[in-house]
């Protein structure tokens, strides 16, 4: 789907998009984005509590949890980081895995770029700090819908910021709350909370599903990662599995 958007956008003349930019009622746009974030929060709040509780179970300082979720603000990589967390943490491994998990942002940013040409970089660069799967998807869908109305500008930065603000405040707030409640919840593994993590990722994978052929690199990643996990200590199964799968994707794409 991401590629599809990119082609539509690049086929369009960037200048004509810029000419149609009209900044309408800015407060209204922010509030509209905030409202659009509400359904997403239903899924986000429990995940944030689980992440915070898992961090406490891994002996992470309660203050470090909102610091991480506030500075990083990318759930998938934070679940991965907590999964690999030790005291002290293995810095290179965690930062490397964060980079790998969040590499999809590169594709997301690239698909958004044609819509952002009308805006100055000094506004875009800080705003992109808040780009996550959900705010990206909502803002892009909104921009597409508004362009067909042909009256107003396509991409609404205020709408994007409204969606993002709702997600950011709740994510940071509820991960912090989860970290504080963690000791009350006790041994979270006994209650099955650790299964939230595979559950979240399996739903994300379902969203990326493009048929069995395209899933072959994933299967390779799973097998290699499982094999390395059983034979080597530490978290090296993540880069081993990921690189093996990406290599297979590279070989399969050979023309």
């Amino acid at each position, binding site marked *: 789907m991401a590629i599809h958007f990119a082609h539509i956008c690049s086929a369009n003349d960037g200048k004509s998009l810029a000419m149609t930019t009209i900044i309408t009622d800015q407060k209204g746009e922010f509030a509209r984005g905030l409202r659009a974030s509400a359904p997403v929060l239903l899924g986000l709040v429990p995940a944030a509590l689980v992440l915070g509780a898992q961090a406490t179970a891994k002996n992470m300082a309660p203050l470090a949890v909102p610091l991480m979720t506030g500075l990083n603000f990318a759930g998938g990589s934070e679940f991965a980081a907590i999964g690999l967390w030790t005291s002290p943490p293995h810095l290179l491994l965690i930062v490397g895995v*964060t980079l790998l998990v969040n*590499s999809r942002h590169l594709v997301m*940013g690239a698909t958004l770029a044609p819509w952002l040409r009308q805006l100055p970089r000094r506004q875009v660069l800080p705003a992109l700090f808040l780009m996550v799967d959900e705010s990206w998807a909502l803002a892009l869908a909104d921009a597409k819908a508004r362009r067909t109305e042909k009256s107003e500008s396509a991409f609404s930065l205020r709408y994007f910021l409204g969606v993002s603000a709702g997600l950011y405040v709740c994510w940071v707030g509820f991960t912090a709350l989860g970290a504080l409640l963690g000791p009350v919840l006790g041994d979270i593994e006994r209650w099955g909370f650790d299964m939230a993590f595979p559950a979240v990722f399996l739903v994300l994978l379902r969203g990326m599903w493009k048929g069995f052929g*395209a899933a072959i690199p994933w299967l390779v990643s799973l097998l290699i*990662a499982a094999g390395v996990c059983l034979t080597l200590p530490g978290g090296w199964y993540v880069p081993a599995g990921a690189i093996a799968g990406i290599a297979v994707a590279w070989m399969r*794409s050979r023309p």
Partner: protein
Amino acid sequence: MIEGWTLATIVLMGSVTYLTRIGGYLLLGDRELSARTMTILEAAPGCVLIAVIAPAFVSGRTSDLIALAITAAAAVRLSLLPTVLIGISSAGLLRHMLG
């Protein structure tokens, strides 16, 4: 108090994540990407995600394997929240029942 090594890890995590967010906009936005590059960029996030959860598949605990199968079946049909709830409750219940 936050220990120095923890702080460094968190600050670096945030930095590389921000670079991934602006990287696509700054580097790839004006360029046409080859179909091959796009195929690889599309496959990469899934490879990473499944590698991260691989240990759950080889835990060796019967309760966890059944719970994982139930969770995977839920993920195919349901959205995030119900899938997470089913995953947690099935793992919790099966561990109590099967030990």
